[in-house]
């Protein structure tokens, strides 16, 4: 028996508009670009809905109806779900229909598609929990297999997932850690006892996600029959073929004229022609098969480019500066207990913002190797840092007001009724406890050795620090 475990990742960030330094202190809307360009979030969601989400969901629904054996997995960032609700509610409904078949599993994720695990585990946990609540509310299910932003993975993340009750976790099946071994089996993360890791078969996944429409590729044009043969050839040397890719591969990364929808439409049939081939969701996969060995990943592994690490997000000085600046604010942001501020801060944690600042290959003049709605990584950094400066200002104002109130009166909390003051009480208070619980097992925060450098940055010497 050989089963295929397809997984499609659905995500859109809230892109920051070209926020100028003059806007600081006077404009708290960072994500409302209305230029009709790639910085206009509504425009993008509507565009991608038309090119990808609607047609792909039609095909997937068709396939579920036609093949009772067909199964797959989806993961959503909370930021894309929020944008569906606001800009394309019919798309959300079509996803709900898919999930209602009971043959589409939803994976756990961070709400804000962030890299929080590597900067603040307490914040990471809050985002995972928020995500879980959102999935429960919209789809009525509870995720049991975890995948992290950009498929980022490390031994301690697997351990965290095990400790928090997940049955499985997804990761890149990378040669550096697999050696001669096949990604088509389940493995046990190093340091874990129960949880199983599902490894992406990057060769077969990327044939669809990256190479499908490439006319220079040896196997172009690829048809479903050939592709099914490639998968069938793993009979006897594997149990599960894990095909992980961006959902937007269908119709957005690979346009309709590449024939990607026809390919998708006929693939299950071609796969099921072989009598001993089937589909499984991630949970079914981890429940069906035993592990065959250990997967030991001490350093961060992702599914990105040829390096499979985080350098596309954290590789240069401006990226590290922006990341450190945003996580440095955590304590003050949480202290505001202000839902709007906390949510804005989290939207700014979305990994895409840092990706747009990547200069990794720009020296080769290959600026198009990375997709970005900004004209340059520096424009992305300036817009982000200006927005963050404004947020910092708002945070310090709220914190100061709160302190003043607490000092001058003994007004009970119930009297703070203005809308801005409404707080996700359970969430925030819960999080404070978590922070105390999780901190001891936390890897040492990178914040410490950065402290000195950060202190020398004028941006961080905001009025707030003076007032403390």
């Amino acid at each position, binding site marked *: 028996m050989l089963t295929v475990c397809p997984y499609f990742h659905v995500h859109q960030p809230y892109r920051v508009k070209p926020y100028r330094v*003059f806007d600081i202190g006077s404009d708290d809307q960072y994500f409302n670009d209305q230029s009709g360009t790639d910085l206009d979030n509504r425009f993008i969601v509507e565009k991608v809905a038309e090119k990808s989400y609607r047609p792909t969901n039609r095909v997937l629904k068709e396939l579920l109806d036609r093949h009772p054996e067909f199964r797959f997995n989806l993961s959503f960032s909370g930021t894309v779900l929020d944008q569906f609700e606001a800009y394309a509610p019919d798309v959300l409904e079509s996803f709900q229909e898919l999930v209602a078949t009971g043959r589409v599993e939803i994976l756990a994720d961070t709400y804000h598609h962030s890299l929080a695990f590597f900067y603040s585990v307490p914040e990471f946990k809050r985002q995972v929990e928020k995500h879980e609540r959102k999935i429960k509310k919209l789809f009525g299910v509870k995720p049991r297999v975890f995948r992290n932003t950009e498929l980022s993975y490390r031994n301690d993340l697997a351990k965290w997932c095990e400790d928090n009750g997940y049955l499985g976790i997804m990761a890149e099946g990378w040669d550096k850690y697999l050696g001669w071994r096949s990604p088509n089996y389940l493995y046990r993360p190093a340091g874990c006892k129960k949880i199983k890791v599902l490894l992406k078969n990057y060769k077969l996944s990327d044939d669809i996600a990256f190479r499908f429409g490439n006319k220079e590729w040896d196997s172009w044009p690829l048809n479903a029959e050939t592709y099914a043969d490639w998968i069938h050839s793993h009979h006897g040397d594997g149990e599960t073929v894990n095909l992980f890719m961006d959902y937007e591969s269908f119709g957005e990364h690979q346009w309709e004229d590449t024939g990607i929808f026809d390919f998708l439409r006929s693939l299950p049939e071609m796969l099921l022609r072989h009598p001993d081939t089937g589909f499984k969701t991630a949970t079914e996969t981890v429940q069906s098969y035993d592990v065959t060995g250990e997967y030991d990943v001490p350093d961060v592994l992702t599914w990105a480019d040829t390096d499979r690490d985080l350098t596309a997000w954290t590789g240069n000085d401006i990226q590290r500066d922006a990341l450190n600046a945003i996580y440095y604010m955590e304590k003050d942001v949480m202290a505001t207990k202000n839902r709007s501020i906390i949510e804005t801060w989290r939207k700014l944690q979305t990994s895409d913002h840092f990706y747009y600042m990547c200069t990794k290959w720009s020296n080769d003049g290959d600026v198009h190797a990375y997709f970005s709605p900004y004209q340059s990584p*520096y424009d992305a950094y*300036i817009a982000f840092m200006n927005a963050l400066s404004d947020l910092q200002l708002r945070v310090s104002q709220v914190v100061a007001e709160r302190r003043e109130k607490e000092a001058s009166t003994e007004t009970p909390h119930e009297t703070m009724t203005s809308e801005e003051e409404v707080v996700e009480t359970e969430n925030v208070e819960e999080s404070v406890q978590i922070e105390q619980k999780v901190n001891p097992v936390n890897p040492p925060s990178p914040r410490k050795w950065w402290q000195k450098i950060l202190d020398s940055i*004028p941006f961080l010497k905001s009025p707030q620090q003076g007032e403390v």
Partner: protein
Amino acid sequence: MRVLTFGWEFPPSKNGGLGVACYGLTQQLINKGIEVIFVLPKTQETRGNARFVFADQERLLKMVHTDVTPGPYNQAKSTVDVIVGYDKAGNPIVKSRSILEEAHRFAHHASFIAKEEEFDVIHAHDWTSYLAGVAAKLASGKPLILHVHATSFDQAASDNVDPSIYKIEKEAFDMADKVVTVSGFTKEILVKKHHVPAEKVEVVHNGCDTEEPIWHTPVLQNLKNQGKKIILYHGRISIQKGVDYFVKAARRVVDVDPDVVFVISGWGDMKTQVIDMVGEMGLSKHVLFAGALWEEDRDRMYQTADLVVMPSVSEPFGLVPLEALQHGTPSIITKQSGVAEVLTHALKVDFWDVDEMANQIVSSLRYPVIRQQMVREGKEQMKGMSWQRAADKVRQIYQSLLQYVTS
């Protein structure tokens, strides 16, 4: 292979980027074994003999002198003082001639030189030498390459070009076998405005000096000690260079950050106008006019500045941001510049977008990491922009023309 080259200026005479570019390219062509006969209109000191002549230098680089005081950036009708002879007492007889007249004179000499010399290809730099190049081609029948460092459209910063320069450009481009531009930006001007067929135009981006500079003691120390940030403009003060947009951006910057000082280093026909503008906008306390800075003074200013702005309205290439980087200072450059095509690690803005220019200035002062990174990665990128690479391309163009002629 021997090349008859016509140019208008050459270091160390104090001029703009044209002489620097001719020097950099010529030196690397010689290094590649190409013999260069470099013809200049006027007797002058030349740089590099001591460096690139070696033993065979005299043979490789032959200087032919005429008697013009160069001034290539002026309009065709502006005049230059020329020594036409000497009186009995030995004092020079000075006459005023227009640049246009001088360009024609240069062409006249060129046809004689072309008959005296033996060479395979003709290479003429900038519009003042185009006629000389054409004359040499007519006299010798050898293939002609015109090297476009600027066009009349750049100098006018509009479509309101000097008709006599445009006429020379248009006719010379038609006569040339190949036209080399210093950027895709300039190629587009030629294709759109001069109607030169795109396949006749090759882009050869300028190179730059990547040697580690000598570090001088900074200037303006008292301002720096007061915590002032220094923003530098370096270049001619003319309509093409967009200094007026720089001043407007300065006003916007000072409104939000009074601790910024703007230094204007340069000379040019718009100087009075810009000084008046600074006064009218109430910026006298924030704008310093440093005059034209050269050599060590210029380097010292680059090293002192926190940020350099090149606000050009139309800049065929633009050496300033590369010079600044060499001295450890990042730049804001306009999208209307050729250098923007090769330098990723600079902030880029439309010349007319004063608000964005000001935003970039203030933001890069607020978040110093961006400046550090632009310098570090920019210097790395500059290593790939050598004159050697430019010379390789030029040599290929020479060879393609020779094949064409012999076959």
